[in-house]
């Protein structure tokens, strides 16, 4: 039995098991509520089947392929009066380890004011896509490159020089550097859509909801959210969102935080002590626009990120390693329950000068994904998509095209 079939069978069995709940009730179609609605539990199951991704274009944070994945989320909210709420979510991928994805308390100091404080493992402040947590919020199966593609940047392991960095181009799914951790591990995306950061977040909105602002102080950075801080350096991240007209949302985000893990920094500074390079940060900016009307939704999102790393050996790394991603997507409802969607992505990197070549520090990637979604029930969605990936440089596959199918159930 092939792996794909095995996963299909597992997904099927899972659905059937759920279908066999007490009282012969079919799959729940709405959140399960207790205590007069003060406790709600929701879920989201997404079973995705696609061919092997030999070029690792769709690898995620946990080294899973986003196009061959069974993801189960369970989320819960407990309202403890008008001022407090507890929210959490756990997630497992391919029946692996169950990981907490969100766990925080929401405090509303004044019930009549649109001001909230959230403490714990909080929702992403940065950007727009990462808060679309459920698979049915994503029109397609894949993720935008800026939120998913694993670059060759690591927080716990560092390239000693430009040549070492260039040698690893395209191998962000699993690479090893000579400074810091010596274990093979994946790099980070510009912004992680698969982990939430831990800290304190404040959100306010005008009475009309036209202007909204969020600011947070967290342990990790947007590309490397963390539960435990690994460098004693916080991140400050903020977002402003404007809704000047119906259907139009314009957002801008900024983030800056200590990126390099203390162990890696110590390893690097031990090699060469450079007092100018004592702060190794990730700085990121983001801009996003969404316009929707009638039966279509259009979205554009750009993310720029710059990492400052210790410079150990010649040829020295530039002061900042930059990356930029663009993502534009559209969805159109063709008829009740049926839509078509497409997304184009581009991810590029700043150039570095090595001994033998001058090139982007990681291999630029382009992606086009188009597909359809069909609602078998209101809360059961079948997605079919076709993805084209192109990589400019590096050792891995330069191009990969493949179809994928995803069945999404939520309640």
């Amino acid at each position: 039995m092939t792996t794909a079939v095995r996963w299909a069978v597992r997904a099927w069995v899972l659905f059937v098991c759920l279908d066999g709940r007490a009282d012969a009730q079919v799959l729940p179609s709405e959140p399960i509520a207790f205590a007069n609605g003060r406790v709600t539990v929701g879920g989201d199951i997404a079973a995705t089947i696609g061919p092997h991704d030999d070029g690792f274009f769709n690898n995620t944070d946990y080294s899973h392929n986003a196009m061959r994945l069974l993801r189960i989320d369970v989320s819960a909210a407990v309202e403890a009066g008008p001022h407090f709420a507890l929210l959490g979510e756990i997630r497992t991928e391919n029946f692996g380890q169950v990981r907490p994805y969100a766990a925080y308390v929401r405090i509303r100091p004044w019930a009549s004011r649109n001001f909230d404080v959230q403490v714990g493992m909080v929702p992403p402040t940065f950007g727009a896509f990462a808060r679309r947590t459920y698979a049915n919020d994503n029109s397609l199966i894949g993720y935008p490159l800026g939120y998913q593609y694993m670059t060759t940047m690591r927080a716990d392991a560092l390239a000693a020089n430009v040549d070492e960095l260039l040698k690893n181009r395209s191998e962000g799914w699993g690479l090893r550097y000579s400074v810091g951790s010596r274990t093979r591990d994946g790099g980070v995306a510009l912004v992680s859509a698969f982990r939430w950061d831990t800290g304190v977040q404040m959100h306010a909105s005008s009475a009309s909801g036209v202007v909204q602002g969020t600011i947070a102080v967290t342990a990790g950075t947007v590309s490397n959210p963390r539960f435990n801080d690994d460098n004693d350096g916080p991140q400050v991240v903020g977002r402003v969102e404007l809704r000047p007209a119906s259907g139009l949302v314009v957002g801008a985000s900024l983030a800056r935080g200590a990126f390099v893990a203390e162990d890696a920094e110590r390893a690097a500074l031990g090699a060469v002590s450079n007092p100018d390079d004592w702060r190794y940060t990730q700085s990121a900016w983001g801009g996003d626009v969404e316009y929707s009307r009638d039966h279509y939704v259009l979205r554009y999102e750009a993310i720029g990120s710059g990492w400052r790393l210790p410079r150990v050996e010649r040829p020295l790394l530039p002061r900042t390693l930059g990356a930029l991603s663009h993502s534009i997507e559209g969805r159109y409802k063709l008829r009740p329950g049926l839509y078509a969607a497409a997304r184009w992505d581009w991810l590029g990197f700043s150039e570095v000068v090595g001994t033998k070549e001058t090139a982007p520090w990681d291999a630029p990637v382009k992606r086009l994904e188009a597909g359809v979604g069909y609602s078998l029930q209101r809360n059961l969605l079948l997605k079919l998509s076709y993805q084209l990936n192109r990589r400019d440089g590096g050792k891995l596959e330069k191009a990969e095209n493949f179809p994928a199918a995803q069945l999404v159930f939520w309640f």
Partner: protein
Amino acid sequence: MLRITRREQGTLRRVPAAVRGARLFLQLVATMAAPVPLLFSAPSFSAPSISSVSSVAAVSEAAAANGAIRGRVEIRRTATGIERRPGVADLGTPPGRLIPDLRRSVVYLDSAPRGAFEPTEGGRAVMDQRNETFVPHVLAITVGTTVDFPNSDKFYHNVFSLSKTKPFDLGRYATGSSRPVRFDRPGIVRVFCDIHSHMNAFVLVFSHPFFALTDGDGRYRIDNVPAGTYGVIAWNEGTSSEPKSVSVPDGGLAELDFTLR
């Protein structure tokens, strides 16, 4: 004969898991080819089956004066509305919403007098979208009625239904705007918002005019019923009673109470 089957009401029979699984798989395969499938035997709230005009109640042709049926529907079950999904990704507390009145029931004649099915000119009705709630939560109309769905909120809504009776999707539209839907077939239409998953409502479309919505106390009254004997059904949030027989006298009043569990 107007009859909503048990399955259509969402009250489902117990089916062995293996049978369900096989059915699921076959339906999934069929889904790829068929345009309007239903994967699970979920509450579908599809169209009530309706036979023909010849299937009428035992009504005296000589009946001259119309009577009425009145009574009360007692709800002895806890009907729960759809709660908001846990908004773990929300950056703040979501806005408050109205709680729909789930105790409103619809009482209707299971069998209708001759002539009741004659085509009528459809009227208009309104189902508002206010504070993330459809108002009213239950709308009972006759075939041919056009329902307007105005948006009274400051943000978008997207009204849609995947019901077999009337699938539609009105798209996203702003506050102050309204879009109409004409209901041309009898049945139960479950209405949702594509943006706010907790918003839901029912539109019950009848091919005859003999129905009534209960008030806040569960009381109803169906007027202008020709004298005769009828089966009467009470419906609430996808659950309906067995038909109860009642005789309406010439120009008189028949009393009929229901209890829904």
